[in-house]
């Protein structure tokens, strides 16, 4: 069952990988219709925070709440989470369209093929959607990965370096898309190294250092 929520909050969130403390107790709240950019040096805990929010890892300490629900309702919550990871997580042997159809079916979206086709057309992927992902440039694969994260109209959209590999035109299009998601009421959280991009799309910018929030700018 799909579960909906209007905000995501984390309290005392910490994550260790063996002796390495990746996240050292973070308290945050993200509301619907907002875009948050997270910046910080390599190893500052940005991506770990996204992975925890995507429920791809369990916190060592602390709690994540998706509205009224905790991570115990993972399956229902996953239906409302979209994730663009740094590794594109696409099957190289399938075409972009087939990757999208697979995800649409796994999300139980009615008329999965049509939804995938419509999204490919809307995002300008039609030129290469039937080629296998193996033949794509980084930017083309990135756009398919972004399309997949949007297939099921997620409430929580997590993006790890979404502008990587995109040309100027595609980056502008991505900014427009993020704005559309904000207006739709999504909670958008973006990890990026690009200060200009973060400044252009985000309502607030978090600076992370050594697993903690060092600065918050609005």
């Amino acid at each position, binding site marked *: 069952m*799909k579960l909906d929520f209007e905000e995501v909050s984390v309290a005392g969130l910490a994550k260790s990988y063996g002796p390495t403390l990746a996240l050292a107790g973070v308290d945050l709240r993200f509301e619907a219709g907002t875009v948050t950019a997270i910046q910080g040096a390599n190893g500052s805990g940005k991506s770990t925070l996204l992975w925890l929010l995507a429920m791809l*890892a369990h916190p060592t300490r602390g709690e994540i709440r998706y509205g009224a629900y905790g991570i115990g309702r993972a399956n229902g*919550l996953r239906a409302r989470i979209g*994730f663009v990871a740094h590794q*594109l*997580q696409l099957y190289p042997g399938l075409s972009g369209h087939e990757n999208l159809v697979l995800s649409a079916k796994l999300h139980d979206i009615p008329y999965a093929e049509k939804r995938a086709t419509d999204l490919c057309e809307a995002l300008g992927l039609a030129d290469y959607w039937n080629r296998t992902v193996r033949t794509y440039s980084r930017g083309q694969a990135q756009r398919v990965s972004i399309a997949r994260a949007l297939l099921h109209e997620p409430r929580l959209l997590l993006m790890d370096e979404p502008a990587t590999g995109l040309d100027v035109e595609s980056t502008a299009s991505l900014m427009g898309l993020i704005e559309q998601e904000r207006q739709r009421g999504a909670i958008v959280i973006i990890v990026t190294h690009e200060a200009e991009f973060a400044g252009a799309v985000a309502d607030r910018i978090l600076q992370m250092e050594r697993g903690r929030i060092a600065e918050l700018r609005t």
Partner: protein
Amino acid sequence: MSVLRAAWLVALKDLQLELRTKEILTSTGLFAVLVVTLGSLAFYTDPVSSLTVAPGVLWISILFCGILLIGRSWALERENDAVFALLLAPIPRSAIYLGKTLSALILLLAVELLLVPLCLIFFQIEPSGIAMPLLALVFLGSVGFVSTASLFSSVGIRTQARDLMLSVLVFPLVAPALLAAAVATRELFAGAATAEIVGWMRILGAFDLLFIGFGIWVSRHLLAET
């Protein structure tokens, strides 16, 4: 979405990839031919001794082909971290395990369609009267092996020592099922009636249910965090 529907979608995706590249079937099929040919050349002495040697060659071939096939199947998931497309979907974790097991079983059975007749020909074993019980034994043995090997291959997503894990964990676990299958096949080749090997089939069936049940239960935890 139900576990079975999600598992079917995962399996279909694997079969779609394989139909496109035919990579797993080609490499595993050729390997199967090689093992059976080498086995028959090395161990065949006369039609009587071949009846005791053939079961060993057959099940060693199935074991090696299965390991090769399942390893490749999970390697496709690691490429580009593609498995996260499944882990991010709102489907039960056990559906991923079941889907991967189902696709691997279908591919292994396809290879066995080549392997079993080849083994019978090379070891000069008359198939009439033993074909159906032999196919049942091969099917039951393959289910047990694939369900166990798939489970521990899924652990390989998180560890670099995946090959070591396969050999250390899978071989001892599937040994009883493989031994039962090999002994039953030997009895069958030696002229035992189907009724005489039904007991072995029951043992194999019990192993299969145990392995699949264990796999479904454990995969929820093994695939919970990556």
